């Protein structure tokens, strides 16, 4: 009885609380990796070799590492789109669709007025992308705020609508006649392409994403509005009775979240594709959802988890080439991580 759990012996110089946090963060991905290894083995592959290939393909060269950062950009934008409404208890599963709509809105200017100068073109595209994604998500937020439709359902279903809308455009009015049967738009003029960093595919979207995350952190923890958001997230009833306008926050945060995902879509199509095409997103919206929930919607952790999942996403191509695995195999790993993360949350909720 004399010894206590809370003051147990130190663990490599960490306090017991730090150790718990560290273990909680590290264990779920490890369990998921072990589960995926078992699957690979059952598939007749050597899991160690596969993991080695992924590590080598991402960390083994400047090009590989650059690619990880390139994937991080849309992941961070999409994670923010989920995290911002999540801070007041809203679930946004619509990052993927908001990404598409942002790309569509952004495409209007370069396809209609290709001669605009860069200084007008890029800000215009970015504003259009924000407005597009914002309206798309804001509609779901409005329906939720009026207690008409669950935001989980509406955001999820609107993803398909956005996907079909994109296809309709690139097969129809925006189809590039020179691409014969390829469903894609005309290439953007040079003025509509985000500046790249160095010679690779890495682009300035990285700074926009990191800057937005920093801004999110500042607003959340330093300002009156972040304080009110945290109050709603902590106890909606008490916040309402204190006079915090909850309905306004729901709509506004969906607009901001969707708008940020829209900018992610603009950045991806402008810098990486250079034109509008369906399938420019490798499920970035959904992976961003995973990032946000794994990081507990915490701005700083979003950066860390985005990096981790970008490594795994990037590993998809590596595994396809070196291990002859279908690209979708990595989705199994993502799903496993999601399950483990959710299971951990469930047990935490029970023990509270």
């Amino acid at each position, binding site marked *: *009885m*004399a010894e*206590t*759990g809370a003051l147990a012996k130190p663990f490599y110089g960490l306090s017991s609380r730090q150790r718990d946090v560290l273990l909680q963060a590290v264990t779920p991905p490890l369990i998921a990796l072990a589960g995926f290894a078992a699957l690979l083995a059952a598939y007749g592959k050597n899991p160690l070799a596969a993991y080695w290939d992924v590590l080598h393909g991402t960390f083994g060269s400047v090009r590989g590492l650059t690619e990880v950062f390139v994937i991080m950009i849309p992941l961070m934008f999409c994670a923010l789109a989920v995290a911002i409404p999540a801070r007041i208890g809203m679930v946004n599963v619509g990052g993927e669709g908001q990404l598409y709509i942002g790309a569509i809105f952004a495409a209007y200017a370069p396809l209609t007025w290709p001669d605009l100068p860069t200084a007008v073109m890029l800000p215009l595209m970015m504003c259009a992308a924000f407005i597009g994604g914002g309206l798309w998500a804001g509609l779901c937020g409005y329906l939720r705020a009026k207690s008409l439709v669950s935001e989980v359902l509406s955001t999820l279903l609107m993803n398909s609508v956005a996907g079909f809308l994109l296809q309709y455009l690139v097969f129809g009015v925006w189809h590039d006649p020179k691409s014969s049967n390829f469903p894609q738009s005309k290439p953007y003029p040079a003025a509509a392409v985000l500046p790249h960093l160095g010679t690779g595919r890495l682009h300035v979207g990285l700074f926009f994403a990191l800057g937005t995350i920093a801004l999110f952190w500042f607003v959340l923890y*330093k*300002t*009156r*509005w972040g*304080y*009110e958001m*945290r*109050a709603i*997230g*902590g*106890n909606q*009833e*008490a*916040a*309402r*009775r*204190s*006079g*915090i*306008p909850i309905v306004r926050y729901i709509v506004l945060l969906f607009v901001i979240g969707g708008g940020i995902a829209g900018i992610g879509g603009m950045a991806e199509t402008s810098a990486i594709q250079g034109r509008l095409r369906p399938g420019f997103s490798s499920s970035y919206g959904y992976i961003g959802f995973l990032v946000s929930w794994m990081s507990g919607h915490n701005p700083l952790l979003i950066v860390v988890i985005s990096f981790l999942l970008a490594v795994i996403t990037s590993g998809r191509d590596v595994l396809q080439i070196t291990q002859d695995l279908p690209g979708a195999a990595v989705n199994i790993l993502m799903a496993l991580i999601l399950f483990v993360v959710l299971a951990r949350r469930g047990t935490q909720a029970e023990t509270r």
Partner: protein
Amino acid sequence: MSTSASMRPDSIAAGPHSMPLVSLRRITKRFPAVVANDHVDLDIYSGEVQAILGENGSGKSTLMKVLYGYYRADEGDIFFDGKPVVFKSPQDARRFRIGMLFQNFTLIPAFTVAENVALFLPELKIRLDLKEIAERIRDISEKYQLRIDPMAYVWRLSMGEQQKIELIKLLLANARVLIFDEPTRVLAPHEIENLMHVFRQLKADNYAVLFITHKLREAFASADRLTVMRRGARIGTLMRAEADERQIVSMMFGAEPQAVQRDGSRMSVTTRPVLELASVTTAGALGELCLENVSLTVRPHEVVGIAGVSGSGQKEIGDVILGLLPHNGAKRFDGHDATGWPISRLRQHGLAMIPENPLWMGVIGSMTVTENMAIADRARYARHGGLSMDWNGVRNDAARFEERSRIPMPNLAVPAETLSGGNLQRIVLIRELGQQHKLIVAFYPTQALDLPTAVSTRQLLVDARDGGAGVLLISEDLDELFTLCDTILVLCGGRIAGRFRPEDTTRDAVGRLMTGSVA
């Protein structure tokens, strides 16, 4: 047990029970920055009701949670039937047939009573035999006159009935030691009477009953043994026969608290009312109560009290005032038609609201105490147009308020969810009574408070009235209503059943109107 007997200097020759069923010895439990229990000894006997008395934060809940295995003590031992035992979790304690009823119940509203009880039973089989469980509930309900229908849905039941279900759960799980954490807090006066009766029967059946309270009247009405705690230490244990109230009060608080100072009101019937509800009628959803034709007026310099058994429409009146509940009839605030005003506008106009349930409606558990104190008046502390918050200003205001009100503040830096019910109530009080307001709507403002803080709180309400505020006081405590109010309304079944000046009526008459026993 001769060794342990020598460890308690004031060991009581305990009448018929010389051997305690459970003994706590030198229990010490430390939390960051506070010693909640400091070498506490306690003996628990079968066939006896023991009251654990003490003000908020005196360590009584912590001690009970150590006994229940919910907390592990940093030092000290527990003896069961004279043998040392270690409780690492509530499961361990339950194995020794110790059960605890918490302040917040753990029932599933969408389930029936029987389904809820079944979930708790250790021998639950794969196939639910709800009929058999219902039969057992009926038996035990009859034995202790609990009047619980096993097939009733929990969401339809009052807090008092839910408490009985929690008790049935423990009894069916064969608990022998029953710990009640402030059981009367959620109960209406007649339900308290019932509970005391149940205590007496449990005692006759040789159960050991422990209950935490800070109400002397209840302790004297039902306990055989009174243990008083103050600041984490046990001050003493007395048998009821040898105890008197004055002695217990001075043990609890060190000194006798002062009474509320109150003069006649300067209210004038010609001043514009600060709140007016005229023939307010609400349409309740299925199974909900509705207000019928409720009219009331609160003027500056006036305390208007609403007496009523809980669930008579108090919450609905509060929701109408806040605009959370649609209604017919007029609502005027300080002379303006306030129908459709958002809460932020009401608050800016000078409304303060002490809600009936601080944990649910008043406090944000994940935020610190400081952050909770600014939540209702955010504009006051926002700086640079909202780009930053003046937390030092919040702390300074809280310190000033503490000095003025003599209500001790909880630690400002900890998350509110770590605090006890009394401390949560203090957060709400400091926040809502700290500034000048035109109208203060106070639901059960002294709930969960210890006596000195309750007195300070009542004094604050009277001071606010003298300063020109109108106060609407919703309470079940008739003493409180008769001490503070200039006008008392009685609410029963969603209607105003009576309207009095306290000097023109009696507690008895009001009490009978509350329960609807007189037309």
